[in-house]
């Protein structure tokens, strides 16, 4: 392969069936089991992320239904305290770590290259690695629970309750190292999004033209790079305290119980924003399509996304208002926690204005997106209330906070995600989802959610603490809990209707065509489902709404072009562009199917298992396997152009 290959000037041409056929051969994943394990196609990986995350959502939901039965009336004994504790801990772990983050990674993985006019993510093998680690970490995290030793001290895992002295079993070791493993997946995934954002946007897509979903995910990814180390470190130190005799968190030996809380929430609060900002981005991009106009205030909404994240790093102490911190720091963090509502207000008013000045089209996706605005507002104001320290001292650790966090996580994550599924399903599978069933799906979920979770505000104000496995008859919490339980089951029926609709529409949904919603962005310019190479020639973009340009009545003579552009077909190739203006810059040689990522992920899992069991032999084996896998990964390859000199002076 000639060294000039990267710097050759590609021809500009129009897409032809011949070219499409050649690209298909170059980019198609191999068939069979090998292909299944070796694929690096972002669309395949994205769908796996989404499906795996939904499996975890359903598991977490079943756990919740079981303990809602236990709580539906006073003094019930459906569960033992130990069972209850494992269930609520695993429920939190599942929803927060194994569903909410990964499902958004899935959508972004699938959609980003399509939205950006690219062939794939910047680092396809890293992408595969991130999925496999996520899957294996999920299995590790569930392995303890499956054999009766699930984590049992809450997803926040406070010490000293999580220390060896009060928790002798393997429960916490599994949780701690499973989380460290999962953190690697999130970290490499985030790096991939950041690099893709900077280098893979098609020509013309300057950073003020990328969809808001891209802003949401890149912001969340940047935050993860800073936030994940805190929690991975905390869990590693905890594992050391428990297994090799250190005392980082042991107050009786000079350690500090508060250290855990700071490390955990320095991660934990930014993470909350990381698992809602991309979902808010989905709404910012999807809602305007059904309002038949561009989003009101694009620039302000993009800036608000970033601002939320920056402020999000300065509010972690609001999880710790009752830990006896001095008044000055309480005042600071209280003010920050209240002010962070401002960028959220930007979003809310931008969405409202978009609907108000638009002509809303009532599809199921629209209903999910529009209802999200209300749920977000309810979750937002209850957050504002708990942001006020003196009020929080009453509300914290009661069901009021349970209500708040579910309005945030279900309202801002699940509702937009289901809306997004209705919106992009036709692109993923070439078929439309059933709209009639969709209405049933929406109204059941909406009613079930509010019947289930709104009363929790009341039980919280009535003084019901969180994480109690039962309560006395005289407390007056019976009816409100019964209503909550009924609502949660109704909500579960709604989720089942969604799953049913997916299965049904996969089989016999109406054909979708390229662009069923007449939407403006690049993913809708490809066939549904898209070909393995996404775009036969590299598109050029002249505005935020490439497919609406001719109808938005602008005088701008520049037009986006899809179907005529740079031809890159000498092997798997993609175009690298400059970070701000997206000018063509370099031809990237992209990797083909490879088993290395899945092997590396397996090797890391072996190391994790060895450390969980404190079996140094297995751990050493894991390290050796990791070294071999990384060696294979980095071995120079001719097809990636890693064996030839590049001339820099040409």
């Amino acid at each position, binding site marked *: 392969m000639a060294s000039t290959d990267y710097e050759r000037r590609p021809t500009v041409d129009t897409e032809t069936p011949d070219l499409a056929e050649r690209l298909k051969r170059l980019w198609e994943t191999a068939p069979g089991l090998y292909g299944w394990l070796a694929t690096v196609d972002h669309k395949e990986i994205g769908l796996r992320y989404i499906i795996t995350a939904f499996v975890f959502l359903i598991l977490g939901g079943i756990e919740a239904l079981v303990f809602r039965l236990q709580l539906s009336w006073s003094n019930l004994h459906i569960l033992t305290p130990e069972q209850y504790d494992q269930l609520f801990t695993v429920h939190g772990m599942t929803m927060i770590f194994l569903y909410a983050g990964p499902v958004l990674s899935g959508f972004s993985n699938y959609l980003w290259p399509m939205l950006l006019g690219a062939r794939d993510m910047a680092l396809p093998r890293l992408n595969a690695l991130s999925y496999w680690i996520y899957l294996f970490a999920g299995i590790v995290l569930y392995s303890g629970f499956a054999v009766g030793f699930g984590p049992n001290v809450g997803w926040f895992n406070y010490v000293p309750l999580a220390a060896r002295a009060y928790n002798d079993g393997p429960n916490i070791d599994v949780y701690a190292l499973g989380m460290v493993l999962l953190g690697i997946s999130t970290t490499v995934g985030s790096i991939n999004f950041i690099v893709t954002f900077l280098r893979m946007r098609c020509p013309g897509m300057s950073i003020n033209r990328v969809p808001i979903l891209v802003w949401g995910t890149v912001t969340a990814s940047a935050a993860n790079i800073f936030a994940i180390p805190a929690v991975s470190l905390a869990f590693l130190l905890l594992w050391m305290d428990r297994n090799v005799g250190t005392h980082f968190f042991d107050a009786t030996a000079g350690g500090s119980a508060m250290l855990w809380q700071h490390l955990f929430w320095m991660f934990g609060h930014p993470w909350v924003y990381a698992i809602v900002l991309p979902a808010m981005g989905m709404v910012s991009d999807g809602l305007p399509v059904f309002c038949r106009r561009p989003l009101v205030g694009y620039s302000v909404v993009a800036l608000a996304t970033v601002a939320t994240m920056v402020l999000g790093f300065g509010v972690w102490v609001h999880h710790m208002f009752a830990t006896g911190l001095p008044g000055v720091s309480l005042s600071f963090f209280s003010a920050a926690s209240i002010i962070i509502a401002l960028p959220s207000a930007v979003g809310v008013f931008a969405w409202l204005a978009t609907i108000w000045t638009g*002509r809303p089209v009532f599809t199921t996706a629209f209903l999910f997106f529009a209802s999200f605005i209300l749920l977000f507002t*309810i979750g937002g104001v209850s957050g504002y209330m708990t942001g006020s320290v003196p009020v929080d001292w009453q509300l914290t650790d009661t069901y009021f906070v349970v209500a708040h966090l579910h309005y945030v996580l279900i309202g801002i994550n699940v509702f937009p995600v289901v809306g997004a599924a209705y919106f992009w399903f036709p692109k993923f599978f070439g078929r439309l989802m059933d709209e009639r069933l969709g209405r049933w799906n929406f109204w059941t979920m909406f009613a079930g959610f509010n019947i289930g979770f709104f009363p929790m505000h009341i039980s919280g104000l009535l003084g019901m603490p969180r994480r109690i496995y039962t309560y006395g008859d005289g407390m007056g919490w019976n009816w409100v809990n019964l209503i909550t339980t009924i609502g949660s089951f109704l909500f579960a029926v709604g989720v089942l209707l969604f799953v049913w609709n997916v299965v049904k529409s996969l089989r016999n949904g109406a054909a979708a065509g390229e662009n069923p919603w007449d939407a403006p962005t690049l993913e809708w310019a490809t066939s549904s489902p898209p070909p393995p190479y996404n775009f036969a020639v590299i598109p050029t973009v002249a505005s935020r709404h490439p497919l609406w340009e001719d109808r938005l009545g602008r005088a701008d003579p520049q037009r986006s072009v899809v179907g005529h552009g740079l031809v890159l077909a000498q092997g798997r190739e993609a175009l690298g562009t400059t970070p701000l203006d997206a000018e063509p810059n370099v031809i990237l040689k992209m990797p083909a199917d490879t088993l290395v990522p899945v092997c590396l992920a397996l090797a890391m899992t072996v190391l994790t298992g060895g450390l969980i069991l404190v079996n140094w032999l297995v751990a050493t084996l894991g390290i050796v396997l990791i070294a071999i896998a990384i060696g294979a990964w980095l071995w120079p390859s001719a097809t990636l152009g890693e064996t030839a000199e590049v001339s820099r002076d040409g």
Partner: protein
Amino acid sequence: MPVVWLTWGVLLISVAVIVIIAGLLGAAIWRRPGMPVVAGEKMALLPDEGGLRWLWLGVGLSTAVLLISVIWTVKVLADIQSPASRPGVIIEVTGRQWWWQVRYLSADGRGFYTANEIHIPVGEIVRLKLLGGDVIHSFWVPQLAGKMDAIPGQINETWIEASRPGTYQGQCTEYCGAEHSKMLFQVVAQPRAEFRAWWKRQLSSPSVPASVAANGEKSFVENCGGCHSVRGTEAAGSLGPDLSHLMQRRTLASGILPNEPSMLAKWIADPQGLKPGNLMPAVKLSQTERAGITAYLLALN
């Protein structure tokens, strides 16, 4: 009191925000609906105009409300950080799995221990020093004050004041293990004189009739004294609650059982059944030992 106003304030603001946004959302949706979608066909589009006024107005108004809330919060926080007058009573409360150890401190060094029931004088500032005896717990008496955590390795101070006599329910609110749900306590607010009388009594040794003591005290010390203490006897354990004046208390086992003879017998027979995982074992006792110990405990007045 300032906390109550603040709470109502932010609650009303919150409700108002929800109502306004819901109203605007409903109006926006049903104001002028568009045509239904025909999959794959191009639909009418509106130009990228207007709507920015919503942002200026909405965000401007939100900014004002949020700033006022911040100032109000910080003001109330400063007001309640320290009480208006000097505390009259200082009590050290230690959260343990799963009960509350209460220690009354006294300037003359004559303090005493009790458990799960905190007596305070009405109308006086009471300073609380909170400690975590094993894991983290949180002290909450909703009618008297907000929560404050009891954390191992540090002493958190807070204060309470009851303006009316009565019994106030409290509960642990930081998840602390299997029996977190059953870590209740009570605060009993009494008029000054009554409180003083209670204090004096706590300082004395229990007056157990000689016949009862003869039958039960020795068994108690042997079987229970390793963990529990009773003033004036050799029972001086500190793992479990001090039982010197057990019969003065209203509840057993940290608020989960009424203090009645039948409940006491039930608790001694099966502590692990009533509160699985707690530190008290079901001690093997002969019939006579059991009867003697129960009678002895029922005399701890």
